[in-house]
């Protein structure tokens, strides 16, 4: 990143030179929300390693990564959606429906590639359904996706009732249980891959720029020649597909499908996105922030688990975290002034 750069080749017009930037990139980085998250992540890591002798074991850390990998994959897409000013609360229900569709197909004898294909297709369709209602018909996303949250999971309940699908093919287990190298799981690799891809998409492409523009002022974005509803539709598709990928991993890891699969994930995903510094009102946020937030939530859950903190207390802590992070940025802004 350049500091104050004066371009000498620019045609000398009547106006005065305006510098590109006043503060350099790393100076800003130091004061950013992401820097604070990094400090918190390191602090939790250090605290955990003192609190429990089992924490630093590579295998248990590897196990712990499942606490966040699936949710984080959805959180990347959700971050873009929230930055653009929308939200998708149906992601966990999309996961349930995707898992159910795969379960039915498995019952009919489908092979692993077919299962994956059907799963991704289901996620895409669910995303398209949300997208048509929100971007196509102009309905508010929060209402639409609360509706489809019940709808998608409702279908799973109708299909499965009290039952469950078990007996997925042996090679299907790789997605959620496989290791790529040593303690590095396939899910962790996917997580890292999508972190990079979504980071590039949001911060490095014109599509990402449009997402920010829409989130800050959708009307002005439209008046700037941006196909606002097309971008919003694509974001719902992306969220649907990422939910499907998360569902494939989770189903593979559990080895079974129940209609209650991934129940409550949507809140943890949104918490992760907001903790990552994405404004719930849209317009700002970053993928590195979401990555750090995913790590923090994973380390926190794992650490609390090692300390034998009961699940109910854990959900209280997650709830407090969500409220805390919505209040904190405001405090943070006051401090920065």
């Amino acid at each position, binding site marked *: 990143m350049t500091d104050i750069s004066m371009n000498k080749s620019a045609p000398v017009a009547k106006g005065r030179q305006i510098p590109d930037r006043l503060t350099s990139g790393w100076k800003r980085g130091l004061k950013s929300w992401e820097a604070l998250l990094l400090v918190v992540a390191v602090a939790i890591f250090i605290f955990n390693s003192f609190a429990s002798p089992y924490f630093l074991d590579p295998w248990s850390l590897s196990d712990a990564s499942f606490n966040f990998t699936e949710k984080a994959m959805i959180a990347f897409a959700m971050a873009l959606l929230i930055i653009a000013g929308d939200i998708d609360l149906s992601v966990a229900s999309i996961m349930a429906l995707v898992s159910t569709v795969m379960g039915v197909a498995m019952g009919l004898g489908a092979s692993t590639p077919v299962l994956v294909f059907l799963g991704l297709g289901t996620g895409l369709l669910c995303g398209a359904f949300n997208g048509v209602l929100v971007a196509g018909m102009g309905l508010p996303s929060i209402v639409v996706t609360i509706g489809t949250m019940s709808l998608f999971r409702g279908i799973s309940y109708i299909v499965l009732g009290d039952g469950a699908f078990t007996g997925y093919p042996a090679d299907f287990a790789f997605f959620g249980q496989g290791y790529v190298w040593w303690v590095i799981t396939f899910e962790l690799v996917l997580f890292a891959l999508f972190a990079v891809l979504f980071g590039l998409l949001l911060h490095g492409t*014109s599509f990402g720029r449009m997402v920010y523009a829409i989130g800050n002022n959708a009307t002005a974005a439209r008046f700037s020649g941006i196909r606002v509803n097309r971008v919003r539709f694509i974001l719902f598709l992306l969220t649907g597909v990422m939910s499907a990928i998360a569902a494939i991993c989770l189903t593979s890891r559990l080895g079974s499908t129940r209609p209650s699969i991934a129940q409550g994930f949507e809140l943890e995903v949104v918490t992760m996105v907001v903790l990552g510094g994405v404004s719930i009102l849209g317009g700002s946020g970053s993928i590195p922030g979401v990555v750090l937030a995913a790590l923090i939530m994973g380390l926190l859950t794992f650490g609390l688990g090692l300390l034998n903190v009961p699940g109910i207390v854990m959900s209280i802590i997650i709830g407090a975290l969500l409220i805390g992070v919505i209040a904190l940025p405001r405090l943070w802004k006051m401090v920065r002034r």
Partner: protein
Amino acid sequence: MQADTSAAGGTPVLRLSGITKSFPGVRALNGVGLELFPGQVTALIGENGAGKSTIVKILTGIYQPDEGVIQVNGRETRFPTAQAAGEAGVTAIHQETVLFDELTVAENIFIGHAPRGRFGLIDTRRMENEARRLLASIGADLDPRQRLRELGIASKHLVAIARALSIDAQVVIMDEPTAALSHKEIHELYELVEKLKAQGKAILFISHKFDEIFRIADRWTVFRDGQYVGAGLMSEVDEARLVQLMVGREVDQIYPKRHAEIGAPVLTVAGYSHPTEFDDIGFTLHRGEILGFYGLVGAGRSEVMQALFGITRPSKGACRVDGQVMVLRSTAEAVNAGIVYVPEDRGRQGAVKGLPIFQNVTLPSLNRTSRSGFLRLAEEFAMARDYTQRLDLRAASLDQDIGLLSGGNQQKVVIAKWLATKPRIIILDEPTKGIDIGSKAAVHDFMSELAAEGLAVIMVSSEIPEVLGMSDRVIVMREGRIAAEFTGDQMTPENLVRAAAGIEGAAA
């Protein structure tokens, strides 16, 4: 209430003197005066932006004047709140009257001062009887128990008037009351005004329509650019004189209009129509030309321009760019066709606040500053630097949030954004509204330069000096239609105002 209702005048119920009101960057009113007499209708006349709305807001306690005196029945008073104005007997019926759709007619009439029964509860029966009596007194045949939602606009006006009477108002302000009414309803409103006059109310009537002013007003007051111009009796004045007073200023600003070679037609619009906003719009725009669009607020000018920019779709008609028929379904298609639009509502439609200046500039040109979808920051800065400099932008850095700039500088960024797309046709909607004088000159200067470079420019403006100073040709719109077109010597303030207001004999 004053006993004196003689047509000759007597003492004013309400007198304003030396009223001054400033907003950041604008002086909306500068030492104006106004007198209202019992039993008489005073018409307040002026162009858009003359300060009529501001004076209404001061009279109804919404704004506080910076200086000046308000007297009611000769006693000096102040209206710190809307309620205080109401208690002093001043009430207003706005263009879009503030009423409550979900409440009944009677509840609307008595909201805030309903008759109370035992335990402080509202005495519904008494309220409805009172409402019936009030409605009957103005000849309105409405059921007090009906919900307002079920009524038409004209009936809502009647409810608003009944409300005014229920607080025993001495002064009734009618701000363009006929704007949304049908012919028959207007007629009924005139009768009602006569009734109110007979009851000794002082009426302030704001309208752009000269025929109705001459029909019902007894007195006139003219404002221009926030200044008091004159007042008198309607019987002693004619249309020509009022028009002259409204616009009759010397063009006190030098407009940097340069000579530009008017070239071949670029844009041809024919039969453009919209179900509600405009009808049968047709015109041709040439290279190097600045075409002015003048009209009253609500004449449909912005709506036509937004249809050309792909925001709304016309129901009929065709638009050709260089002879090729264009169907503009989205703003992206309009930009591709070389048509760009600088909107009037800068805050909502122009600037993307929250994004830095350079990102605002490159927003419609991202396909040129990126390679296969990936952004090139260096190219973005180069583009932003180039165009903002040409417009003489004042900013700390290009990385600064556009929301931190003044209105005029935001406007420069919005114009820079469009120039960077290398358009063929640029539409500027009220380009200098609400911006400081320095930026105004920069925008005018630049407009001239663009035309000289061969761009075709459409300028929508409600400021007569600007329209006359900058345009090669002026189209006047009225009520969604093209009312007249003027060139050369025909481009006079009087002609524009007459055509915009629909005064006979304006055809030239």
